């Protein structure tokens, strides 16, 4: 059976993590193609609702990538993100959603290597966890978590 391929939604800040991802590309650093990136102006502008929506709709992991503390283009946006993620994770833990599916990482514009490493690590960690069972809004309400990963695993990826 082919290996489970996690889907990762990445919210990347325009100034650091997104540029880091760009650099990873231009530097030809390889990383698994499991990540779908969304560019934000700042991680501080990310409302937790979008992370929650991704998780409830079946994303296997959510990566929030921003500037290192002290490097925020908007002074303290990344600190705000850090605080919100702290609150979000606490609430996820309390309501029974695996908080480890949410990663907050600082990746600089110059750290293409770190970006590709992060994605590799995250994919490995999520593979070990298995698929997120909350596949779609419909299924959370089932009496049992009858949320079979729909038609997964998909066809094996070409290396």
């Amino acid at each position, binding site marked *: 059976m082919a290996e489970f391929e996690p889907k990762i939604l990445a919210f990347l800040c325009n100034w650091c993590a997104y540029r880091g991802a760009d650099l990873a590309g231009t530097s030809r650093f390889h990383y698994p193609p499991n990540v779908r990136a969304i560019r934000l102006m700042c991680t501080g502008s990310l409302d937790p609702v979008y992370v929650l929506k991704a998780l409830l709709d079946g994303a296997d992991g959510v990566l929030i990538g921003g500037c290192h503390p002290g490097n925020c283009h908007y002074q303290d946006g990344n600190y705000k993100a*850090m*605080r919100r993620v702290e*609150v979000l994770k*606490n*609430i996820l833990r309390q*309501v*029974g959603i695996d908080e480890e599916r949410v990663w907050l990482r600082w990746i600089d514009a110059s750290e293409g290597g770190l970006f590709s490493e992060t994605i590799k690590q995250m994919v490995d960690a999520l593979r070990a966890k298995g698929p997120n069972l909350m*596949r779609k809004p419909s299924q*959370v309400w089932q009496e049992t978590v009858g949320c079979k990963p729909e038609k997964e695993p998909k066809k094996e990826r070409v290396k």
Partner: protein
Amino acid sequence: MKIDTVLTVEDGNTLGALRSFLGKLLTEGVVDYLLVPLEISHGRTLAQTLVKDPARLDRANPFSPVMPESGAAIVAQLTIDHPGKKLGAVLKPCEIRALVELVKLGQASLENVIIIGTDCLGTFEVEDYAKLIDEMKGAEKGAKVLADMRQGTKLPISLRPACKMCNAFTPFTSNITLELFGMKDGVFISLDDKLAKKLKLEAKEAPDRKKALDQLLESRNKTREQVFSEFRERTKTIVDFANCLDTCIMCYACSSACPLCYCRVCFFRTDTFEPESERYYRWADREGALRMPTEILLYHLTRLNHVAISCCGCGMCESACPRKLPLTTIFQTVGEGLQKALNYVPGRSVDEEIPLATIPEVKV
């Protein structure tokens, strides 16, 4: 310096004495306006009222047994643009806590505001209280209910769920406090000594309230623990948690009633999460079935993320809910867990910043 004075009550008319005390605040110019619950609809309910003319206080009841709307939201509405009016606001402890949170969130101002806090005996659902009044005979029904609540006489209606588990029934912060716990009758007023002098009130030693307060605290904490542990037991997984919300109709009454949900337009009321209809069919194709409306769990989890850290336990959400979902329990259980983890007591002081603004650098 704060001192205690006793409110002189004639012929057992506590409400009358309270009304004349509040009137004095207006006539002596301590405040220009008073926000205070007034009996309306022949005493069937009470509503926060902005009073200028002391004569209009004849139906006032600072110990209102109902709370149709959180006074915190009203004070926010009255102070957000710094009108420079001297406002006295008669508020319950939970309303004060919510107000303090709103001040920290930049949604209200305490500039020129005198908070007249009250000990809280708890409140009833508005519909229950109206029914109770309808079935009562005689005059001064409000006064009778107050007296019964103080004496602990069993009433045919019970407190709101939030009040049953409330463990903060005396104000954390207030300029003037109307105290009644630990006393069979009469009301003590705790206020600044200069203000007492202005109002020609003599200092008098207040009775020892500690025992009565501790007793109530203990029983409320017990109820709380019981409700919390029962809820935690019942909602170990996200599926069970979602099942608690299964009859939600997404009417947004909880967010309208919540004093802390201050956004003018909640993004759940916009089309942010409302895709073109085609998308729903696609989801149904893929899943075989799609529970409608689709974003119930997302809505409640988001509200938890936005307000749980500041949740003051007023229970306005649950009272407003047409389906009577256990929202107070959810928000208080998760809220307490979060507040404890971040070592924060919402509404305790305007000087304590909300953790969202203060968490020091943490290792991620």
